[in-house]
C-alpha cells in the first residue's frame, strides 16, 4: 500500500474510533442526565400520588408532576435516537471531509516525492538530463540536492567519457605502432641488405634481390592487411539482411578453411529444424572465420578439437563454438571483446571485437565461457524472424 493509502487508512480508522467515542459519550451523557427517568419508583410514586390525592388541588399538582415527568421521558426517548443519528451524521461528514482534506494535503506532499522517485529511477538508468521543479520546505532541499547531484554526475560522466576516449586512442595507437613497426623493420633490413650487396657487387645479388623483394612484398601485404582490418573495424558494417541458411554457411566456412585446420578435429552438430534466418552472409562468415582462427591459435602444434553446434531454442537460434585450446585467464574474460585487446604475441586484438559488433548489428548477443588450460566456448544468440 502506498504512503498516501496508509495515511488515509490510519486517519479513517481514527475518525471512526472518534465517532464511536463521541456516540458512546453522548449516550453516557444522556443516560446520566436522564437517569432519573430510569427510576421506575419515581413514576410509580407519582402515579400513587395522583391516585391517592386527598384534594382536587393535590390531584392537580400530582397530575402536573406526572405529566411533566412522562413528557420528558417521551422526549428522552426521542433525544436518544436523534443523538445517535446526529453523531452518525456528524461522524460521517467529519470522516468524509477529513479524508478529502488529508488526501489533498498528502497529494501535495507526495507529488514531489513521486517525481523524485521517477527521476531517481531514470537517473539510475543513465538519463541525467532530468531535473525536477523545486517545491518549498524540506522536500525542496532534497529535490535541490538531487538536481545538483545529476549536474555533478553529468560532468563526471563527460570527464570519464573523455578519459576513456583518450585511453582507447592510446591503446589503438600503441597497437598500431607495434603492428606497423615489425613489418617496417623487416622492410628496412631487407632494403639495407640489398643496398650493401649492391655496393659490394656481390655475385649472389640476383638471388638476394629475389629473396629480399619477396620478403618486402610479404611485409607490405601484412601492412595492407593490417590497414584493412583497422579500416573495416572503424567503418561500422550495416548488415544487409537476407534469408540465409545458417548451417550451410557454417559448412561452407569449414570447407573453405580445411587446409588451415588440418590436424584439428572439427565436429558439427547442426540442427536441421533451423530454417532460413535473416543474416548478412559475408559478415556472419567473417564472424565464424574469426572464431575458427582464434580456436586454431589457441592450440599447440595445431592439435585440438572444435565443436560447432546450432540449435533453436525459445525463439532464438543459438550457435555454440567450443574448443579445447588454451582458454583465457579469468581476469581477462571481461576484456576479450574490447578492441585491440589481445593475449597473443601477434595480432591486432580486433577479431572478437568485430565478432561482437557484427552479432550486435544482427540484433543478437555473444557470450564467452572459458577456463585457462581447458578451452573456450563462444555462444551466439540470433533472433528468429517473426
Amino acid at each position, binding site marked *: 500500500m502506498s504512503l498516501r493509502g496508509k495515511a488515509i487508512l490510519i486517519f479513517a480508522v481514527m475518525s471512526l474510533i472518534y465517532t464511536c467515542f463521541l456516540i458512546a459519550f453522548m449516550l453516557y451523557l444522556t443516560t446520566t442526565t436522564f437517569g432519573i427517568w430510569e427510576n421506575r419508583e419515581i413514576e410509580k410514586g407519582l402515579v400513587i400520588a395522583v*391516585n391517592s390525592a386527598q384534594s382536587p388541588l393535590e390531584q392537580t399538582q400530582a*397530575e402536573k408532576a406526572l405529566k*411533566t415527568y412522562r*413528557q420528558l*421521558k*417521551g*422526549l428522552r*426517548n*426521542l433525544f436518544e*435516537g436523534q443523538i445517535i443519528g446526529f453523531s452518525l451524521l456528524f461522524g460521517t461528514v467529519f470522516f468524509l471531509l477529513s479524508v478529502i482534506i488529508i488526501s489533498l494535503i498528502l497529494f501535495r506532499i507526495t507529488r514531489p516525492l513521486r517525481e523524485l522517485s521517477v527521476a531517481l529511477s531514470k537517473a539510475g538508468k543513465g538519463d541525467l538530463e532530468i531535473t525536477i521543479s523545486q517545491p518549498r520546505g524540506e522536500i525542496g532541499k532534497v529535490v535541490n540536492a538531487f538536481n545538483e547531484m545529476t549536474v555533478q554526475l553529468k560532468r563526471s560522466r563527460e570527464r570519464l567519457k573523455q578519459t576513456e576516449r583518450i585511453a582507447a586512442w592510446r591503446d589503438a595507437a600503441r597497437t598500431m605502432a607495434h603492428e606497423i613497426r615489425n613489418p617496417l623493420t623487416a622492410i628496412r633490413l631487407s632494403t639495407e641488405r640489398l643496398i650493401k650487396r649492391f655496393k659490394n657487387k656481390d655475385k649472389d645479388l640476383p638471388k638476394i634481390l629475389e629473396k629480399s623483394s619477396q620478403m618486402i612484398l610479404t611485409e607490405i601485404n601484412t601492412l595492407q592487411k593490417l590497414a584493412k582490418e583497422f579500416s573495416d573495424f572503424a567503418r561500422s558494417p550495416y548488415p544487409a539482411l537476407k534469408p540465409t541458411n545458417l548451417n550451410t554457411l557454417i559448412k561452407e566456412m569449414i570447407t573453405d578453411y580445411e587446409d588451415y585446420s588440418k590436424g584439428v578435429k572439427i565436429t558439427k552438430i547442426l540442427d536441421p529444424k533451423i530454417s532460413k534466418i535473416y543474416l548478412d552472409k559475408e559478415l556472419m562468415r567473417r564472424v565464424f572465420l574469426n572464431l575458427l582462427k582464434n580456436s586454431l591459435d589457441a592450440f599447440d602444434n595445431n592439435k585440438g578439437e572444435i565443436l560447432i553446434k546450432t540449435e533453436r531454442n525459445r525463439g532464438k537460434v543459438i550457435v555454440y563454438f567450443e574448443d579445447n585450446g588454451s582458454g583465457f585467464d579469468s581476469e581477462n574474460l571481461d576484456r576479450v571483446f574490447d578492441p585491440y585487446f589481445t593475449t597473443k604475441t601477434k595480432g591486432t586484438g580486433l577479431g572478437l571485437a568485430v565478432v561482437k559488433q557484427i552479432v550486435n548489428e544482427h540484433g543478437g548477443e555473444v557470450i564467452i565461457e572459458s577456463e585457462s588450460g581447458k578451452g573456450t566456448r563462444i555462444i551466439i544468440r540470433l533472433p528468429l524472424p517473426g
Partner: protein
Amino acid sequence: MPLLLKILGIKAIGTIIGLLVLLTKSSPGFTPIIISIEKDSVIIETSLKKCFSKGLDEIIMSGSEVAIFYSCWLFEKDPEKNVKTVAEKSLYQSITFYPAENRFYVSIDQDSLIIFTELEQAKTAVSSVKMSVVPLALIKDNNLYSVKIDAVLNTIEIEAIEAKQFDLNAFWNFKYPRQNSAWVKGKEFLKR
C-alpha cells in the same frame, strides 16, 4: 438541555436526521387506500402504521392530548388530462389519557368520543381513518379519480422546556406520512 431540545425540535435538523434514521428504522405510512360507496357517498378508508414510538407513547401517557390531523383530497382528471380538485376534507382525531381514571379518550372528528382502557386499542382507533369525501352524484363516468391523504401531529405544551411548545412531528422526524391512490375511472366507482 432545554436548548438542545429546542435544537432537536427544529424541522431542518429533524429532517436531516430523519434521513439517517430512515436507514435504520421505517417511518410512519398509510396502508393502501380503500375506496367504497356508502349511502351514495364516496368513502375512503385507510390507517396509519408505525406512527407511535415509545417516546410518543410516553407523551400520551403523560396526559397531553396527541392529535393527528388528516387531510384528504379527491382529484379528477378529464379526458383532456386536465386535473382539478373535486373535494378537500380534513379530519381531526386525538387521544387523551386521564391518569386519575386510567382511561384513554379518543375523539373522532370532534363528533364522537370513544373510551378505551388499553393504550393499544386507543392508538388503533386514533390511527384509523374512514371518511366520506364526496357525494356519488359528482362522480362522472369517463373521468379518472385519485385520492390523496396525509397526516400531521399537533404541538403540545411542555412546561419543562424554555419554548413551552413542542412539535410532536419531531417523533416522525418531520416526515409527514402521505399516500396517493391510483387513478380509477368514474365507472369503477359507480360499480361498487
